[in-house]
């Protein structure tokens, strides 16, 4: 394994690190839930890698994500918008409209024909339309987050969740449960509510096909299905949807080394 460059994405929920070879292929990656002591966690990531490949000398590291400023080992910081666009474009080989649903925010990025960011939109000042919306609701219904999508898809009917506010949606769920509504239709309604918020962002920047998806939330199968229903577009996924920010950062590091 020959690592030529590294990228790290310190998100609000998880930390992802990717190592790529000189051809820009992912040859190593590691993911952990984020630790409040980010600097210590990044050290442990690097130590883990060092044990595997002996030396990290001359391997440039670029950081992205909310915690990127805390990664003192990085040679440079780049925002997650630019990194996600770079990673997805490189992996899929074309531009389009990328939806990235993260723990703390959701982004819609229009990627140009050369992989550049043409436009972007993010949810503002509110957790509605983010992974946290589902996370909170999953906890309220005692459904493990990993199973949420499958449980939602097993629903034979769906209820409408009118609150877009995460906190109020929780109150709405409590009230529905109190009225005897089953968990499955509520879960499906929650997915619909989340995706409608995200699709509104897609519409605000204008959908340039194909529609692409990245971020940890894509492991949830209901997300992809509801996006396709709401947009009437087929959704394409990169091979490692959760690693695209870190991958893009690594690609920038590779380019930096070359220049």
């Amino acid at each position, binding site marked *: 394994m020959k690592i030529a460059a590294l990228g790290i994405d310190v998100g609000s929920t998880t930390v992802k690190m990717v190592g790529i070879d000189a051809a820009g292929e992912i040859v190593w990656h590691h993911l952990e839930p984020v630790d409040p002591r980010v600097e210590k966690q990044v050290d442990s990531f690097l130590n883990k890698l060092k044990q595997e490949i002996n030396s990290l000398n001359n391997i440039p590291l670029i950081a992205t994500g909310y915690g990127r400023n805390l990664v003192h080992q990085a040679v440079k910081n780049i*925002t*997650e918008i*630019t990194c996600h666009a770079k990673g997805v474009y490189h992996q899929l080989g074309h531009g389009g409209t990328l939806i990235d649903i993260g723990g703390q*925010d959701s982004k819609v990025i229009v990627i140009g024909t050369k992989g550049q960011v043409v*436009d*972007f*939109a*993010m949810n503002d*000042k509110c957790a509605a339309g983010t992974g946290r919306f589902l996370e909170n609701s999953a906890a309220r219904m005692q459904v493990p987050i990993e199973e949420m999508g499958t449980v939602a898809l097993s629903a034979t009917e769906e209820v409408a969740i009118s609150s877009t506010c995460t906190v109020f949606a929780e109150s709405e769920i409590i009230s529905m449960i109190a009225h005897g509504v089953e968990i499955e239709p509520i879960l499906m309604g929650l997915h619909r509510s989340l995706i409608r918020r995200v699709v509104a962002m897609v519409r605000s920047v204008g959908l340039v096909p194909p529609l692409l998806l990245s971020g940890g939330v894509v492991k949830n199968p209901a997300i992809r299905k509801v996006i396709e229903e709401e947009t009437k577009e087929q959704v394409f996924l990169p091979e490692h949807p959760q690693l695209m920010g870190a991958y893009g950062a690594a690609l920038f590091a590779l380019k930096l080394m070359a220049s």
Partner: protein
Amino acid sequence: MGITDSLKYYWNVKVVGQPFLHWQRRQAERRPKVSSRWRSDILSPPLRIGAKTKELISRHYLEGRYANGHRPVAWVTSGGPVEILQALGFYVLYPENHGALCGVRKAVVEIYGEAENAGYSTDICSYARTDIGSMLSGKTPVGRLPKPDLLLACTNICQTVLHWYRVLAKHFEVPLILIDTPFVYTKASDHALEYVKKQLENSIPIAEQVAGRTLDYRRLKEIIHLSKDATELWLEIIGRGRHHPAPMSVFDQFIHMAPIVEMRGKKETVDFYAALLKELDENIDKGIGAVRNERKRLLWDNLPIWYRLRYFAENLGEHGICVVASTYTNAWAELAPLMNLEKPLDSMANTYMHPILNQGTKYKLDTMKRMVEEFQLDGVILHSDRSCKPYSIGQIDQRNLLIQEYGIPALLLEADHDDPRAYSEEQVASRLASFVEMLDD
């Protein structure tokens, strides 16, 4: 008007206050001090005129503090036809300007909290909430605001002012003059102009009665003349942003625009802007830009985020980005050609019908397009202002159309001009950082 109050006014304002402020300004001019927090590595030193701006604003509020009983006092909306009141000798207070000052001084949360505690919704404009909070509690960072003898609200900026000023009228039990300006979709009709003129005419006897004197039309003309002169100078000043590098950023304009809003029709305002223009021209000759190493130039749409002006100036300045033009500061300049002192009331009706907020969204889009071209801009920041709906409506379409036509990035930022609770810095920082990367791409 009482003799004791007049004596108090002369002593506090003329004998003690004004000479002190004058001395303070002279000291600041002789030994200009740059705050240790000023980012001299990325921004040029503050403009010298800043000492004069401070003196003018302080003096304005000092005069207000002792005005009751000495002069009639009027509270007016920012787009209000103030010249008639000036000619009648009113001390004129602009609650919106006061709100902005409270924002800059970071005093808003405590003041509008008073309005919210009294039941005013957080969905109401933060200027209105700040003003009502101040009205109810007397809280202000400027010492004391004078009570109004007359209120003047003009609907050319929004409809909120109508309800806001009714609250003031009820509280202070004083007459309210309402000037209703029909919306200009494409062109102002003759009957609409006539309608506004009629209202202006009707307002004169009410204002005269409160002032206890008759309107002198010669004085009115002089005041319109001074208003026009100052507005023309301001137009020239903001036009200096066309130079590379721009000698003044909009964050400076937001501060130095205070006199054009609240001190129109005064000789000292004309002198002030003449001095500012001179300083900018000197800086242009020396090649001094507001941002050292200016690489990119932006447009700002909508009101400022008053409590974070420095943050934006520094955050963007760090990347060699200068915001050189804004639709907001332009709004106080672009009406200069409409002012005609030969026909005072007709010209006032025409002028006060045409603020940007009383015209269709296409007008704003066209203004932005013109600015992108004339000022050779690389991008646009549109502040979606929770408090100012008339300014924010249409911004998503305006943003998309600017991107389409000019191929430049445009960023929509959600915030509020005076309510820090509707502003999330971490979110703003991440959007600004991505936007900066797009500008460099």
